[in-house]
């Protein structure tokens, strides 16, 4: 097992603390009517982008999906601009034009968030191709779910990335459900990672709720990509605590399955491990959590204090220059 520095462990914990509390605030804000939007909670899946992003540079890029707010935040997308976007405000990352399914913040490498299952991967290839053409060793992460492994674009993208030796990490968060359908009921192969073999690239299935396992897999894949050795498919096993979309009654889940998974919540597990293994004190972790809570509160205030965009914005950004109609 590779040694991970305390600094890196704490940086992962800080991201996880931000992500967990952010999700809680978003769900509460929808329940109270403060936010009106479709929301695909990522609670339970925080380890994956928190760990990967802690290993990425600012010039590395990501393409993510509708259940991807955690991916954007972990990569560094500013919390206040994100909340303003969710609030539909002019100060949002996308001036309120994108919303929760299209968070974009190129300065921190958040290049595309797509609402279409499977569509993060083909575009990630292009970003990686661009880095290669520029002679940079920047990498691109394509985040997607297990359901996307049954879309044609997944197979086309893996083939092209392997053929062109593109610096891409294909990161499948396998949360065991494609919308409401159990993984095994919709997928003939028993592991998404096995598909990598069909495209001559390494494929690895890891416990996506375990920071150390996730770190080992991500570090190896990033090193390979930076060294010009091509893409890796990582299947990170995880679970979403709040169903497919906010308001989901989870009636399709097995009896007790959700309770069992939530009892194994990776957040308190990692937190306790950090203390037990002497990587951080309770006070230090509590302070990090309080800082993240304050960041989120400030972000909510920023969003609520911001103006909605004027109606004239409907016709701007369609093209670089507004078309006469």
């Amino acid at each position, binding site marked *: 097992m590779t040694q991970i520095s305390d600094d890196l462990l704490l940086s992962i914990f800080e991201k996880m603390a931000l992500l967990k509390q952010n999700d809680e605030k978003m769900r509460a804000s929808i329940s109270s009517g403060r936010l009106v939007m479709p929301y695909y909670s990522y609670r339970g899946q925080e380890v994956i982008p928190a760990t990967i992003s802690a290993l990425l540079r600012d010039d590395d890029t990501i*393409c993510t999906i509708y259940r991807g707010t955690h991916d954007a935040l972990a990569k560094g997308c500013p919390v206040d601009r994100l909340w303003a976007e969710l609030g539909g405000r002019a100060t*949002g*990352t*996308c*001036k*309120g*034009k*994108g919303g929760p399914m*299209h968070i*974009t*913040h*190129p300065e921190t490498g958040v*290049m*595309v968030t*797509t*609402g*279409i299952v499977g*569509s993060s*991967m*083909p*575009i*990630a*290839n*292009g*970003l*990686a*191709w*661009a*880095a290669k*053409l*520029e002679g940079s060793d920047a990498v*691109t992460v394509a985040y997607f779910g297990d359901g996307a492994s049954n879309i*044609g*674009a997944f197979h*086309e*993208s893996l*083939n*092209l990335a392997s*053929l*062109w030796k593109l610096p891409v990490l294909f990161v499948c968060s396998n949360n065991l459900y494609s919308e409401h359908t159990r993984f095994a009921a919709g997928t003939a192969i028993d592991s998404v990672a096995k598909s990598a073999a069909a495209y001559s690239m390494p494929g690895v299935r890891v416990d996506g709720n375990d920071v150390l396992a996730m770190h080992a897999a991500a570090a190896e894949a990033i090193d390979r990509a930076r060294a010009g050795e091509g893409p890796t498919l990582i299947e990170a096993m995880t679970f979403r605590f709040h169903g497919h979309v906010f308001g989901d009654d989870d009636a399709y889940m097995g009896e007790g399955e959700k309770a069992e998974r939530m009892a194994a919540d990776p957040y308190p597990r990692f937190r306790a491990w950090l203390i037990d293994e002497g990587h951080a004190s309770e006070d230090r972790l509590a302070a990090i959590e309080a800082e993240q809570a304050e960041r989120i509160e400030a972000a909510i205030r920023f969003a609520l204090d911001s103006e909605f965009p004027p109606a004239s914005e409907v016709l*701007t*950004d*369609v*093209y*670089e220059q507004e*078309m*006469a109609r």
Partner: protein
Amino acid sequence: MSQVTFVQSINQALHDAMEDDARVLVLGEDVGDAEGGGVVGITKGLSQAFGCERVKSTPISEQAIMGAAIGAALKGFRPVAEIMLMNFTTVASDMIVNHAAKLRFMSGGQTSVPLVVRTMTGAGVSNGGQHSDYLEAWYAHTAGLKVVLPSTPADAYGLMRACIDDPDPCIFVETLPALFNKGEAPVRGSRVPLGKAAVLREGRDVSVIGYGRIIQSVAQLADRLAGEGVSMEVIDLRTVSPFDKEAVLASVRKTGAAVVVHEAVREFGVGSEISSLIHEEAFAALRAPVRRIGAKFAPVPFSKPLETASLPSLDEVEAAVRELAAVTA
């Protein structure tokens, strides 16, 4: 003036653009010289001149082709992605419609997708129902895209250069059955501005507005009818979206009658949009309702007589023009 084919002029445009700007890339099935430089040779010599990193042959993976082009464009490259036939763009339509067209808007202007999709189509060579469709109306109906459909080799050169320069995604439609037709050679480095029509013939009785191969035939018809005292004005839109409204309206206000024509099916077509615009903006100038001519509302058939029957004919245009010319206010 020397004469060149569409194949030569588009090849020249790609060559000149790649020479002028290192950000210009070409990708698609068979585009490299090892694969023949494209199925009809439009990309011939490019990989030899600019290397296999900038001119990349791809697997038959339309979504992956478009995704790669979009990602590279997001990082500031200027990819020209070939989707061999327009019917195959349907396989990549998620990438084109949901992503290339919308990323600028959905990101609030933070990102842009300056790419060109090159694609061939057109009935008349017995390619049947899945290799012949003109789908420009679909893309013209999608905010965020621009669509061009040149009718001469020189325009093809100038429009390709303009599309590559453009900061937004452009669909560049090539007429397959006309690719080896000759026309005046383009001026190297010239541009045909997007959204600007060409007046192919000036006239005073009836305006015929269209684009692509058929509008060139309409120009020949105008020459013939001029001898019989019917004066046609012929407008080649060249750019389907955004189309040149000023040119259309100015012409109709002068002639008082209009026929719109294209090779795509008539129903829900580009011609319907143009016709509506004329009725909304120049109704008072019209002596008669606008006539729309297009392909029959059916898949393109294989058998020669059927294929011919499905296409709009010059006879239909002539009949419409004669009828409208005879209507007095």
